[in-house]
């Protein structure tokens, strides 16, 4: 069996000095899709931040994409983050430049030297999210769902081993949420990327069933039957 992409053992997630989640044990296999549910303030975002080392891991052990979260140094953060695709509810595309420039910016930041290769990769991911015509469009000229697809295209640029999606459908209507989720699952499968998909929206779980974890009362439990 392959090394899991995420392996957490007896992890306590802290926010400041306060523990938010205790005794977290979590494995995510390559290419696996996992929902993360729980009420507001239950610690979903905090757990995800711990995975991409935006919160330090102080208790327990954790490995993400081959990086030991206990030992990771600041200078290794870029290497970890390049193996991940991080997407939020707030799309945070750079508003002062076109879609292609947004994507190009990320490629340059992650060491893609050759302009032609960057151009080719940008076309690939825009085709993948069905927005090939958006190249030269400014982000504000796109709908919310389209912006979220561009953000997802951006997350795919470096062929991530794990996509971390934190409430990505929070601002979308139900139809668009479903479309976005379907697109992400499809593309993740094609790219053999695992997805950790944090959401409030229980209706999504009905449409696309998958392994589901719940944050509640400071612990994470696996929901055998996530549907009510």
């Amino acid at each position, binding site marked *: 069996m392959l090394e899991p992409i995420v392996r957490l053992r007896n992890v306590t997630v802290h926010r400041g000095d306060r523990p938010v989640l205790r005794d977290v044990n979590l494995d995510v296999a390559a290419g696996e899709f996992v929902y993360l549910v729980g009420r507001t303030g239950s610690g979903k975002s905090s757990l995800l931040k711990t995975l*991409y080392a*935006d*919160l*330090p891991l102080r208790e327990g052990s954790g490995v993400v994409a081959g990086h030991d979260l206990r030992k990771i140094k*600041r*200078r290794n*953060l*870029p*290497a*970890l*983050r*390049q193996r*991940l695709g*991080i997407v939020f509810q707030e799309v*945070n595309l*750079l508003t002062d430049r076109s879609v292609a420039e947004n994507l190009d910016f*990320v490629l*340059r*930041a*992650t060491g893609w030297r050759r302009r032609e290769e960057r151009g080719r990769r940008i076309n690939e991911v825009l085709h993948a999210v069905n927005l090939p015509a958006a190249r030269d469009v400014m982000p504000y000229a796109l709908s919310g769902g389209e912006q979220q697809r561009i953000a997802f295209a*951006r997350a795919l*640029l*470096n062929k991530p081993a794990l996509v971390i999606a934190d409430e990505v459908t929070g601002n979308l209507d139900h139809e668009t949420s479903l479309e976005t989720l379907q697109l992400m699952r499809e593309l993740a499968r094609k790219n053999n990327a695992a997805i950790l998909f944090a959401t409030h929206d229980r209706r999504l779980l009905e449409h696309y069933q998958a392994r589901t974890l719940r944050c509640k009362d400071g612990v994470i439990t696996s929901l055998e039957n996530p549907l009510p």
Partner: protein
Amino acid sequence: MHTPNKFYVTVSLALVLFLLGLTAYWAYLADDITRKFREDLDVVVELKADHTMEERRQLLAYLTQSPFNQPLTLPKFLDKEAALTSLDRELASDLAALGLNNPLLDVVTFNVPIDYSRSDSLAVVAAAVKSREGVDDVYYQKGFAEMLAVNARRVTLVVGGVVLLLLVITGILIHNTVRLSLSANRLLIKTQELVGASWGFISRPYLWRAVWQGLLAGLLAAAALSGTWYGLANYLPEIRSLEDGLPVLVICGSITALGVLINFLSYYIGVRRYLRLRIDDLY
């Protein structure tokens, strides 16, 4: 993006660099002037009224090859009539008209090398010369050049200290402006970090801007300094030679380089501190 704030910072830096250049040029001028005074310092050896030709010849020979004598100059003998004339033409003719004796003595004058021009060295030189046969007494202008040098140095130190303080203040000002502009761009920076950009990549555009701004400030200061020097040269024609232009050129080059260096360092420290402190907030 050029906010007025950044523009003011560049102008302040230029201003401080200009003051620094001015101070450096003042220090150079003061040093140069005291040097000229010291080189021209005459030591006057009064010969006894009854000295012999042989004693005079021996004294001249002694001085010529002694280390007290400035290289490339020769001690000069001046008889008392010439001495009187050179002192005061009218007094000389008045004395002659009145049939009075010339009160002066025959003298030998010489210049000491710069190294011997301090009072304590001069006292030693005077004592050595005074002990020679046929010498009555030795005079020199006590401590004038020295006083000049000490005062010039004092002014340089005080002004230089103030300018350096201004330089530090400017550095802090730049540093704060950088952090302000970084926190205005914090979303961009956060995004860069999340997609895996290194700090080096994130800082690069800021450091380039630092180099250009520093260069601009330095060149502004150099232009102002050259202009000031040119204006000054119209009032003081004696500094308007090529040798006097060269130090100005060197100073201009130095303040330009310094401008780039200071701006770069302030930016570099500003960016690093901003990135690091934010991390510390989290960890």
